[in-house]
């Protein structure tokens, strides 16, 4: 029958041709073949052993099959079936194939394509089995599977078909009417290896979607049959249609009709995110934060809207005995086992019973999937856990070796009754069921969660707007002002809130109260369930001493283990550990936090708005790639998801991190949890882009490069995430890059401001509540964030942060006495205090050169400055540019520019300058020739700060380093050689604008030239340390730092480490080497041992980064 094979092939290859030309010859041939077959069949039947099980079945074999076409033909003969050498739509009933190319699948839509096993199994069984379970692909019907599959997108490349992991498609009954194009719907892998026969009803974890349920009901029962059952392997969410069915919460996935592939893969991810309800819940926090923000802005515009809850309280206020005013009171409102209590809200029968919210609804066991080895994973997790706590007894060994294993569905929330039985959140349902056989499972009800959470927020917002959303069921309230206003005690407020929430949502909430966030949170633990608790300041000490360290926020199992290694179990133990020791063990910041937390100190404030530090998108569920192309496509689409989020957040980021989870060597190929990632190694790679971006393709290319650099087999990936850090506001920065001087000049609303009077400006930062409507605000590239949208809120920041604001205060001699006197008494006091402090500590004011060489192009209130006191001490050869009204700065906003060599000055440009500028430049050059540069520089003194807005940020900045110069914020140091003939090119945009404003018409000649010279890619700024980038400046800075201070501040050390890391990233190892060597000399010479410790810390960190980047460490002589 080899003839069959070849002719069949020909027919295959001919495809349409073969059918179209079906003339006399073909018809004759076909009928002849039929005859032959029947003759043969009759003979075969006579020989005995035959049957009629295939009566009415006519098969056509396509492609290579096992058993072969010959064998199948023989079987069909024996058992009463028909075998067609040529496919005919009208008479062939089944097509037998084990592998079909895509175009074939399309062509054969509506036909029954069955795997050969159907024949052999039927023969074995002695009767005609249902072909359904043997179908090769699924023709999903209707809405649910209109979608797209990752694999299919690569059909052109088509390598997936050759791989052992085949792309088999499930079929569903009654699917003949499936619309065209729907067929290549679901992504279904199947291992064809024989060991994967025992399969399970798919239990789509985490997503009780209708799709999954459909599949279960259709195929569930049949799958348990040995030798059947394709493994349903895809994320149900992926296969959903792109456009419809989007829940209202998440943004609609972006889909364009063009660029099909992009949309398809991109669709999968935004799909995933728009459907993954867990993702939605996690984003709710942001949503609620926004809700609170909205409330605030509404309030600001509409004036004081009466808060209903507050009014009601005010009315009943006399009933409450006033307890005197509390200094500060934070309320921490937390719903009691949120998911569980919402789940049983409408089911009174479950009240008082152990209840767990989980996706698993069965008895807690599921059938074992092939390739999975839950025992191994269990052991792995157990080992991990027992490392943490050696006392843990090994869990009941998985005695059951049958096909069913414990359900790996996680418990999202469980009721207090269940908790009493030892069930914990996050536990696998199977194990929980063992612990508590009476445990009832409740399905997820995302709509209800949303409804309840919303109701809770609305309730709280009716009392006050000082709310920080922590999660969908957790809120911090700063009740200080509210309590003061109403004159009631916190407990009364808590009671009122709880009653209100209970009434409106039907779920109970607990309220913890304390004088700061930490105490409020700790008090909540005591308040639970359904209660409130006020942690009074006098109890704090006793309370916290008893507390286990792991109950502190931020102390997880890992840190807890580390601490118990240090012999620390409770906060009381922790109080005995020195801060320096903690900082050494956990890093400067965490160490300090721990040190403070264990004393019940927490200076965080309730913020209703959080600055985002990073934007990321991750998927670690159901990631199974077959090749690098798929991984790349996935990364690309994940990048567009990141892009969407960046744009949503209005941010651009510079640092892109690719995080991957890779199957740990030796871990089972298939995770025990359905679609889960199993045991993984977590890897991350980071790259810093030349400029901040929110463009998906840019991020994608960076990430793909990182991915390739990691050299990981795509098959082993189990999770992928992209994170973008170093965010800056998208609105201001990019515009500035593009905006030419001309535009700025012509731009409306930029009135030239006269240089501010230093005397009157000085004090403004301390009188911080004043909003300054500073026009050049939008021009400043260094301050990307202050969009107008934020402005309404900033006074709030200012108010709350005022008291512990540390601003570098100008030296007494520089302050206008009359202004000082005009200040409120408490502010004056602060200013004066800081002077006394200043005297004690030598100022390490440093010289900040914004750039080694900037063009001979100074402007601004130069003459003011030159005649001022700064002149005598400023290093020669520098120009000071002053930028007024830079928001967020209370420090000196002048920028010192080093003059380029006189020879480099373009005479034309020089001539174009206004006369006074020319004079200043000349005198500056004159000074340069004569004077010696001086190290000390009083630039730090407040020269003109007018920082009404964004004081909170100033605080942060100044905490870090009192020598931080604003120059640092300017995207500055151009390299010396960049000295172009166009000065505007080298000037930072802010200065450019300033320059235009000040120079007025005289710059018109420049304006024609500069826009063309502006490079679309602004050269990347060299790393700076406190504004300094030249080696000499760095040396000076370091020397002063080490010599003037006896003990380095952690922030400073970190700043240096950051600088060194930047140098490595900037591929400037030479400078790094010099800096390190210089520090080594300085610090190891220092008498204080802390300095050599600091150096060791820096060196360790630097070596680590070098090791990462270069695979080797710096040679330290």
């Amino acid at each position, binding site marked *: 029958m080899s003839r069959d094979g070849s002719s069949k092939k020909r027919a295959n290859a001919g495809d349409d041709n073969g059918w179209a030309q079906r003339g006399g010859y073909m018809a004759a041939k076909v009928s002849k073949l039929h005859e032959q077959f029947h003759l043969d069949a009759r003979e075969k039947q006579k020989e005995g052993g035959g049957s009629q099980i295939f009566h009415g079945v006519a098969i056509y074999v396509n492609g290579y099959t096992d058993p072969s076409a010959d064998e199948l033909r023989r079987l069909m003969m024996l058992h009463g079936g028909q075998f067609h050498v040529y496919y005919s739509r009208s008479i062939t009933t089944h097509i037998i194939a084990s592998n079909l190319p895509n175009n074939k699948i399309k062509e054969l839509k509506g036909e029954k394509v069955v795997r050969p096993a159907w024949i052999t199994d039927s023969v074995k069984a002695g009767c005609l089995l249902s072909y359904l379970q043997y179908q090769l692909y699924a023709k999903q019907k209707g809405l649910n599977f209109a979608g797209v599959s990752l694999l299919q997108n690569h059909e052109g490349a088509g390598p997936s078909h050759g791989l052992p992991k085949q792309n088999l498609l499930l079929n569903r009954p009654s699917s003949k009417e499936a619309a065209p194009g729907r067929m290549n719907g679901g992504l279904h892998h199947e291992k064809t290896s024989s060991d994967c026969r025992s399969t399970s009803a798919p239990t789509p974890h985490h997503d009780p979607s209708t799709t999954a349920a459909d599949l279960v009901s259709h195929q569930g029962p049949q799958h348990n049959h040995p030798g059947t059952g394709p493994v349903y392997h895809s994320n149900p969410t992926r296969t959903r249609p792109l456009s419809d069915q989007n829940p209202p919460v998440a943004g609609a996935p972006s889909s364009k009709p063009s660029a099909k592939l992009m949309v398809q893969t991109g669709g999968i991810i935004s799909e995933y995110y728009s459907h993954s309800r867990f993702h939605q819940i996690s984003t709710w926090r942001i949503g609620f934060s926004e809700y609170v923000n909205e409330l605030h802005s509404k309030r600001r515009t509409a004036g004081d809207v009466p808060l209903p809850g507050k009014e009601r309280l005010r009315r009943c206020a006399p009933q409450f005995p006033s307890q005197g005013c509390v200094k500060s009171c934070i309320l921490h409102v937390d719903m009691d086992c949120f998911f569980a209590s919402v789940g049983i809200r409408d089911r009174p029968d479950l009240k008082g019973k152990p209840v767990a919210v989980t996706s698993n609804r069965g008895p807690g066991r599921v059938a074992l999937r092939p390739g999975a080895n839950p025992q191994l994973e269990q052991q792995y997790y157990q080992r991990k856990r027992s490392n943490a706590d050696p006392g843990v007894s090994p869990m009941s060994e998985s005695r059951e070796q049958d096909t069913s294993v414990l359900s790996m569905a996680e418990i999202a929330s469980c009721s207090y009754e269940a908790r009493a039985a030892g069930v914990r959140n996050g536990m696998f349902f199977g194990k929980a069921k063992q612990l508590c056989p009476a445990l009832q499972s409740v399905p997820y009800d995302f709509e209800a969660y949303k409804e309840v959470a919303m109701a809770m927020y609305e309730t709280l917002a009716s009392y006050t707007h000082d709310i920080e959303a922590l999660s969908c069921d957790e809120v911090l309230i700063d009740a200080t002002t509210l309590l003061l206003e109403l004159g009631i005690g916190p407990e009364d407020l808590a009671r009122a809130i709880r009653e209100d929430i209970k009434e409106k949502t039907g779920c109970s909430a607990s309220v913890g109260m304390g004088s700061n966030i930490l105490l409020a949170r700790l008090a909540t633990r005591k308040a639970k369930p359904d209660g409130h608790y006020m942690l009074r300041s006098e109890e704090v000490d006793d309370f916290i001493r008893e507390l286990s360290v792991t109950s502190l926020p931020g102390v997880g199992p890992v840190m807890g283990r580390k601490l118990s290694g240090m012999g620390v179990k409770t906060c009381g133990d922790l109080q005995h550990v020195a801060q320096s020791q903690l900082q050494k063990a956990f890093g400067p910041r965490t160490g300090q936090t721990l040190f403070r937390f264990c004393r019940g100190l927490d200076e965080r404030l309730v913020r209703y708005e959080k600055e985002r530090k990073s934007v990321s998108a991750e998927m670690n569920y159901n990631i199974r790639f077959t090749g690098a192309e798929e991984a790349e496509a996935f990364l690309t689409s994940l990048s567009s998801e990141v892009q969407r989020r960046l744009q949503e957040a209005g941010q651009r980021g510079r640092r892109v991190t690719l995080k991957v989870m890779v199957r740990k060597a030796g871990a089972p190929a298939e995770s025990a949890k359905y679609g889960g990632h199993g045991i993984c190694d977590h890897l991350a790679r980071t790259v810093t882009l*030349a400029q901040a971006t929110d463009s998906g393709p840019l991020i994608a290319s960076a990430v793909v*490069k990182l991915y*390739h*650099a990691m050299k990981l087999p795509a098959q082993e990936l189990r999770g992928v995430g992209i994170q973008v850090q170093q965010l800056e506001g998208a609105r201001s920065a990019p515009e500035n890059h593009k905006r030419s001087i001309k535009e700025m000049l012509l731009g409306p609303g930029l009135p030239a401001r006269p240089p501010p009077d230093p005397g009157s400006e000085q004090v403004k930062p301390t009188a911080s509540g004043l909003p300054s409507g500073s026009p050049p605000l939008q021009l400043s590239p260094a301050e990307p964030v202050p969009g107008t949208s934020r402005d309404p809120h900033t006074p709030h920041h200012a108010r709350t942060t005022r008291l512990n604001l540390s601003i570098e205060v100008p030296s007494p001699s520089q302050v206008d006495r009359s202004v000082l006197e005009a200040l409120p008494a408490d502010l004056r006091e602060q200013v004066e205090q800081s002077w006394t402090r200043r005297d004690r500590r030598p100022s390490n004011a440093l010289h900040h050169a914004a750039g080694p060489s900037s063009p001979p192009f100074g402007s601004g209130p130069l003459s003011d400055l030159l005649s001022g006191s700064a002149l005598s001490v400023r290093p020669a050869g520098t120009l000071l540019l002053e930028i007024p009204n830079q928001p967020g700065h209370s420090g000196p906003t002048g920028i010192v520019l080093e003059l380029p060599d006189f020879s480099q000055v373009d005479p034309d440009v020089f001539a174009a300058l206004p006369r006074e500028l020319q004079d200043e430049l000349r005198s500056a050059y004159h000074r340069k020739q004569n004077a010696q540069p001086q190290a000390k520089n009083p630039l730090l003194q407040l020269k003109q700060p007018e920082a009404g807005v964004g004081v909170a940020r100033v605080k942060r900045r100044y905490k870090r380093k009192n020598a931080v110069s604003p120059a640092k914020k300017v995207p500055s140091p151009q*390299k010396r*050689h*960049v*000295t*172009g*003939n166009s000065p505007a090119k080298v000037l930072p945009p802010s200065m450019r604008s300033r320059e235009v404003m000040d120079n007025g018409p005289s710059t018109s000649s420049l304006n024609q030239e500069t826009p*063309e*010279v502006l*490079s*679309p*890619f602004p*050269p990347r700024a*060299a790393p700076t340390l406190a504004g300094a980038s030249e080696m000499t400046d760095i040396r000076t800075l370091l020397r002063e730092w080490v010599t003037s201070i006896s003990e380095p501040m952690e922030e400073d050390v970190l700043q240096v480490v950051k600088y060194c890391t930047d140098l490595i990233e900037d*591929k*400037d*190892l*030479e*400078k*790094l*080497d010099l800096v390190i060597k210089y520090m080594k000399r300085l610090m190891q010479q220092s008498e204080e041992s802390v300095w050599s410790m600091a150096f060791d810390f820096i060196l360790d960190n630097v070596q680590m980064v*070098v090791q990462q980047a*270069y*695979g*080797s*460490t*710096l*040679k330290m*002589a």
Partner: protein
Amino acid sequence: MLNISLLILNFTMKIKRYLYIYSLTTSCKFYRLSIAQDLNFGQVVADILCEFLEVAIHLILYVREVYPSGIFQKKKKYNVPVQMSCHPELNQYIQDTLQCVKPLIEKNDAEKVAVVIMDKEHHPVERFVFEISQPPLLSISSDTLLSHVEQLLRAFILKISVCDAVLNSNPPGCSFTVLVHTREAATRNMEKVQVIKDFPWIVADEQEVHMPEPRLIPLKTMTSEIVKMQLYVEERAQKT
């Protein structure tokens, strides 16, 4: 010897030619636009860099005493004295190698060019790594005479000539090889296009690349408009 001097002459001429063009470009904006399109900046950068690399390799071989000092001759380059080998085969090898490196640099495909000094067992003892990256947009606008670049390259040369002060001495009987670390996907093209017949790139052995306990000694970094390059040495902790 003739070969080398000719070569140097050749390079100098090239530089002059470019300089001529650039000085032209800056004087007239209109010209610059049109010329910028015709001129392949990558090629210019590659020429400059390969010339520099040739000088550097010779100097490294001299300074690190890979070959007896007798085969080296003093020459002047970048206005400083340099040592160049006058062994024809060695020179040919270096030239050929750089000829093959050039297209990579042109396309910004070469990430690192490493001169590896290996001991008798062909285990690397030292690696002089030139890490090269080009700015996204090449523009030679201000430094018309490239004098600044020349100064920077001179600094490299000077640094190489004194690098033996910071390095431990090598065991006797060393040899050297040149490795190129390409950026992704460059290798595929490399196999297709052989610049010099029968002088193909081959993937380096693990043995040639792996260095136990490497120590990193940064030598020099330059940042210019046309190229950003840094040179560091990776040294095996135990050389003998």
